[in-house]
């Protein structure tokens, strides 16, 4: 079976002991790679109830059978840990080229446990791992850090790591690899809690695929991105700002509305006209959705999610300010989604008089205050003054203030896709292992549907898009490729699996792998106490209608959500309380799982 080195590394930073474990084909066939490997190892080795900032937490980087090959977007990397945002299993992904480099190194996964007594970074050279002193890097932002490491190691090494946000344990600190973020769930904070500044990696081994000519034929056949992803090709992900705003699902002023009157000013059209420096692509990606924008500062991005979180959600309509804010978040390694939505929460609290200038270090924290946005980001990264409060995220802030307008699921802030305007996203967020993520159940195909107010077909959409996303995350490739390969698992995915691995897999078997990984993630969360009552949405989404715009009147009514959950649990083989049944665990080969 091709596509694997069959090797994982485990680094214990407390003891400085490095071990390697081999896995076999049956393991690969059960868990596929990336997401699946991380779910399996973390379930087995993270004890129930562990504080995510405990040295015993494990953060893993993993790749899959696609990486380093010519399959589109095969430079991507998976990362997972127990999340300091949700206290649950959380996986996150970043583009760029780290995943290909990891593949060439001969490691399929790298897990870090323990805590070093000094700042360190890991230097990986063809599976040879060194724990290196990072004292000189600590305190530097991640883009500087990557440059400093490259100066010592040579530019061939690819680096992922943290800036000051991760060092200071901002709960939503992310990882930055190259200039791309593994944004969600605080993976950077887990790095920081281990005194781990970065991982830098190089490899020069070949990656063998089973059917290279078949893979090339597949590549040629599926490469019509100008037709299938025209918006992404021409404007990048910011193309979504205007279209989602017109549909009426652009989270505005902490989701008090979903229509942002100034959206045009922060639209993809505007950015590409006024600020475009040049277009960039991740490794092996023919779509090339990344944009380098040049305003007062130069930044790769902002992407759509950032334009929502730091833009409309905070009532900010100055595109240049968002470029600066985006760059700051990248440098400090802060998840722009959680950072922006946390600031938006505090802005609403300020406008309601719940927070005053006494709380905000004198900042006039109204929606739309650009200076406050920038100052808040700086303070968050340093956990300074009011920033220390904001660094905890919306849910913890709301709990302290005793209010319910925090816009998160399981403690993770909502992405820029409305659970009121999109019924499938209402369900997808509620049952997502991660919480407020748009990368479990996917929103893409519902945007094109005629009737967004009906529940008809929406449970199936949530289920099937989550199955595909999980396979994509295990291969490990980018979800934007769905426009070419399909929004749900289909014969394209089966075919590419055969070309990559030589495994004569069927669609049914591939779907079962997705179910297995999703159920294992669910089992991790069930072990932590998650049940049906926790599969819910922010209060506002369930009790306040969208007041204006194209989706005026839409709402995710609790009774509708409960009905969809019934159907969803049944199809997943979970009981009425959302717990995978013994029969389901057995069917999926997970009968070893204990809650």
């Amino acid at each position, binding site marked *: 079976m*091709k596509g694997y080195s069959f090797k994982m590394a485990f680094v214990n930073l407390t003891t400085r002991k490095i071990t390697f474990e081999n896995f076999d084909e049956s393991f690969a066939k059960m868990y596929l790679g990336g997401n699946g490997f991380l779910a399996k190892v973390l379930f087995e080795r993270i004890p129930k109830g562990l504080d995510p900032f405990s040295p015993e937490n494990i953060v893993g980087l993993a790749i899959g059978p696609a990486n*380093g*090959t*010519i399959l589109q977007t095969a*430079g991507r990397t998976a990362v997972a840990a127990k999340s300091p945002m949700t206290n649950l299993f959380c996986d996150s992904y970043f583009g760029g*080229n780290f995943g*290909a480099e990891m593949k*060439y190194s001969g490691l399929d996964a790298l897990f870090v446990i323990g805590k070093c007594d000094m700042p360190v970074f890991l230097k990986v050279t063809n599976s040879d791992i060194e724990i290196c002193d990072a004292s000189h890097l600590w305190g530097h932002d991640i*883009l500087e850090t*990557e*440059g400093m490491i490259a100066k010592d190691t040579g530019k061939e090494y690819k680096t992922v790591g943290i800036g000051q946000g991760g060092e200071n344990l901002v709960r939503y600190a992310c990882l930055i690899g*190259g*200039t791309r973020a593994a944004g969600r769930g605080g993976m950077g904070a887990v790095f920081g809690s281990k005194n781990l500044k970065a991982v830098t990696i190089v*490899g*020069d*081994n*070949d*990656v*063998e*695929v*089973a*059917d*290279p000519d078949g893979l*090339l034929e597949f590549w040629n056949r599926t*490469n019509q*991105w100008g037709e299938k992803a025209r918006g992404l090709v021409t404007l990048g992900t910011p193309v979504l700002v205007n279209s989602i705003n017109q549909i009426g699902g652009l989270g505005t002023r902490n989701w008090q509305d979903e229509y942002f009157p100034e959206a045009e000013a922060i639209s993809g059209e505007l950015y590409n006209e006024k600020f475009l*420096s*040049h*277009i*960039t*692509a*991740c*490794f*092996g*990606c*023919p779509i*090339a959705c*990344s944009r*380098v924008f040049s305003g007062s500062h*130069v*930044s*790769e991005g902002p992407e759509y999610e950032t334009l929502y979180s730091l833009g409309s959600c905070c009532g900010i309509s100055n595109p240049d300010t968002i470029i600066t804010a985006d760059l700051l978040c990248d440098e400090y390694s802060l998840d722009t989604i959680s950072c922006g939505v946390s600031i938006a929460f505090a802005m609403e609290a300020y406008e309601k008089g719940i927070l005053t200038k006494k709380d905000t270090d004198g900042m006039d924290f109204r929606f739309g205050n650009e200076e406050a946005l920038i100052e808040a980001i700086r303070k968050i990264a340093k956990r300074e003054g009011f920033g220390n409060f904001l660094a905890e995220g919306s849910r913890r802030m709301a709990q302290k203030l005793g209010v319910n307008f925090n816009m998160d699921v399981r403690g993770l802030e909502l992405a820029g896709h409305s659970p009121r305007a999109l019924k499938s996203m209402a369900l997808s967020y509620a049952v997502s292992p991660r919480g407020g993520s748009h990368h479990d159940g996917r929103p893409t195909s519902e945007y094109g549907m005629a009737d967004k107010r009906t529940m008809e077909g929406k449970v199936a959409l949530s289920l099937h898009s989550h199955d595909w996303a999980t396979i994509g995350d295990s291969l490990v490739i980018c979800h934007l490729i769905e426009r070419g390969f399909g929004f749900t698992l289909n014969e394209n995915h089966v075919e590419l699996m055969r070309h990559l691995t030589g495994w004569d897999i069927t669609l049914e078997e591939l779907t079962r792998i997705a179910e297995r990984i999703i159920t294992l993630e669910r089992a991790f969360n069930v072990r932590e106490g998650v049940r049906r009552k926790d599969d819910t949405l922010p209060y506002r989404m369930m009790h306040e209608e969208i007041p204006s715009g194209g989706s005026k009147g839409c709402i995710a009514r609790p009774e509708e959500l409960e009905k969809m959950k019934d159907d969803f649990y049944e199809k997943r083989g979970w009981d009425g309380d959302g717990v995978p049944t013994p029969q389901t665990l057995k069917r999926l080969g997970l009968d070893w799982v204990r809650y």
Partner: protein
Amino acid sequence: MHIGVKPNACDGCEICELICSKQDGRFNTKRAKIRVINEFYKIPEVNVCRQCEDPACVASCPVDAFEEISPGVYAIDQETCTQCLACVDACPYGSIFIWREKVLKCDLCGGSPRCTVYCPKHVLELVE
């Protein structure tokens, strides 16, 4: 003949490296004879042999490992090459690369370079 690179048009996807490195079912951009230079916030650049008229690499080789496979296009005979790396030092453009003990120079795939076919942004073209 050489591979022409459209200026300021590369997006850095490295698909040219991938297709160049494809051999016996294997991919490995470290074996590519064409390289993409990706640096933060800069327009990516492509580094590939210009097939110089008076090639310094050929002149520098002490064992005559460069074989003229078509007029003006040289390939390295790996059997003859002693990996002294004189050509790597001699190339003024840094367009000869090393993978392990192997010296790598673009030989235009014998006249029909795959990178020019697979580049999704049509940055590369065969110039007669």
